[in-house]
């Protein structure tokens, strides 16, 4: 089954030929060289690109939340941008209740040694849905990171193949933990939290989908089939 190839590795000094990058010093709080991708983005997408700022050396650019997938695809595919790596997907909710929730993407171009922060604002005005397009189609790395963002904030990533909770159990009823209205110790009392956690049925270890893979649904004991067939989720 395993391919037998001659093992080998080379010790190289990586990096682009040209200037050797150095440790940045004396970075200004604001102002400073903006990432050239911002200009290119404005030229390409026009009004979908909002304001851009440079804070402590990092460029942040605001993008219209409906256009994120196209922007991401262009940034990854265009040979002059070449952002091959998705570093992080996360969200920020501010203490000021008037401010929008911001979804943040950190992307990196290894070819040009650039770093860019994309942000999409989701105002809490009751009219904007709490959802942004998924960038899973562009970078597979977004898979689990978007699931975590959904789990912690409740932000829906449209187009994600399997958006479900990843860190908390699926039947978690208390809410979305990293929201600012969620208290640190949770909403329920400690004994209630423990009761809910221990209520997970240890026999119902697998989800219906997982069992259907193995065509094992027919072989399960009758009571388990009844439970799972009745829509009981395992809570995993």
């Amino acid at each position, binding site marked *: 089954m395993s391919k037998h*190839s001659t093992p080998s*590795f080379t010790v190289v000094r990586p990096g682009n030929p040209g200037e050797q*990058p*150095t440790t940045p010093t004396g970075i200004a709080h604001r102002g400073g060289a903006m990432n050239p991708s911002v200009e290119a983005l404005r030229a390409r997408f026009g009004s979908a690109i909002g304001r851009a700022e440079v804070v402590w050396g990092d460029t942040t650019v605001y993008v219209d939340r409906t256009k994120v997938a196209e922007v991401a695809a262009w940034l990854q595919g265009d040979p002059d941008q070449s952002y091959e790596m998705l*570093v992080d997907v996360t969200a920020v909710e501010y*203490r000021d209740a008037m401010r929008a929730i911001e979804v943040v993407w950190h992307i990196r171009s290894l070819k040009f040694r650039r770093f860019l922060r994309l942000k999409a604002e989701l105002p809490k005005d009751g009219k904007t849905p709490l959802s942004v397009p998924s960038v899973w189609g562009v*970078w*597979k790395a*977004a898979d689990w990171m978007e699931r975590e963002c959904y789990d912690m904030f409740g932000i829906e990533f449209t187009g994600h193949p399997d958006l479900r909770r990843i860190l908390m159990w699926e039947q978690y009823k208390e809410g979305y933990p990293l929201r600012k209205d969620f208290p640190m110790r949770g909403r329920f009392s400690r004994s209630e939290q423990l009761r809910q956690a221990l209520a997970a049925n240890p026999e119902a270890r697998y989800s219906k*989908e997982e069992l259907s893979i193995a065509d094992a649904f027919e072989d399960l004991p009758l009571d388990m089939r009844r439970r799972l067939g009745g829509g009981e989720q395992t809570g995993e």
Partner: protein
Amino acid sequence: MPTMTDKRTIEVALSTTGLGPDGKPQRIPLGAEGLMSPHAPAEPEFEGEHMLINIGPQHPATHGVLRLVLELDGETVVRCIPHVGYLHCGFEKIGEYRQYNQIIPWTDREDYLNSLGNNIAYALGAERLFGIEITERCKVLRVIGMELSRIISHLVWLGTTCIDIGAFTPFLWSFQERENVYNLLERWTGARLTTSGARVGGMIADVPEGWTDQLRHFIDTFPKTLDQVERMLNKNAIWVGRTVGLGVMTPQEALNYGLTGPMLRASGVAYDVRKDFPYLDYETYDFDVPVGTNGDVYDRFLVRQEELRQSVRILDQALKRLPDGPVNVDDPRVILPPKSKATSEMESMIHHFKLVMEGPRPPIGEVYVPIESPKGEKGYYFVSDGTAKPVRWRIRPPSFVNLSAIPKMVEGHLLSDVIAINASIDIVMGEIDR
């Protein structure tokens, strides 16, 4: 006196519920088209009869509480569904309730194998947020700390990978070497494992007397253990047979899946944060970064082994150039006044009081400073609103992203290979689940 009928649980109208609009979280069945490529069955006469087994969360070889559900066709893995979250403790939530210096013990506990490295990564990010430049001595001490941390993390990886694949002795060798580093760390920071060694603007303390001699002794004796391990494993037929050709990721796949660190370098992509986005003057140190060719488990093993040697090289240079001077920067916004002044002068006492009770306050802004942790690209993303506690403290977890590629890596391999591949990713559940 409250009676038993008084309600003590708080009932809040939830602004967000845990369930979607249809009452369930949105999900697409796992058999969805395009999600996983179809796999040709290895045993045609049993075609269609796949077995579902569950590894974990309590299992000796899952390096923590990881749960893998495997769909097997005989012994060949057709599909792997990992479940994480069994160690989720709410680090990022807690970080919003703590001052900047108070968060440092939490950075120890998430990637607990690389505690001092995490502390320093945190301090680098926080210092960028505050706009502080650290002293020269602090920079070199931090390089020493990061490389020591890298060594102990790779030693745990080495020991546990060897146990997983079947070789028990290197575990004892690597833990014996770890004890030597533990002695160093304990003398410097006071703790063996969870060091909390960095502060915003400096370190917990300067290194004590005689510490540099002990470090010199370690640098001189450690490569012997590496030679021992190399002699035992590198050309060993069993080892090579069990690791070559396993869990291959092509460079394009590796980049797309967001892999970083030795996982990415073993696949042939020469990306190391120390070289490409340097910090702590790493560009002035003379070291190489090993890059593999095949992207299999054996290459990852070789890459990490060579990284251990390179870390010793960096330690050697850092120790030679360690300058004198203060460790902490002389910035009253973040550094406490000396105790003798704080107990005698009123201004210093008030200064001390404000810094301890309220905490240092950075200007409004946000930073993300990545470093090269032994697992990959690690960084802390801070968002500050000018108060003493961050609005958002995000940990970019390299193991989390590396692990998300495991379904891709184990497809088509045997059950025992799953354990070897899992070991080669070098995961730390504390960092994955936070």
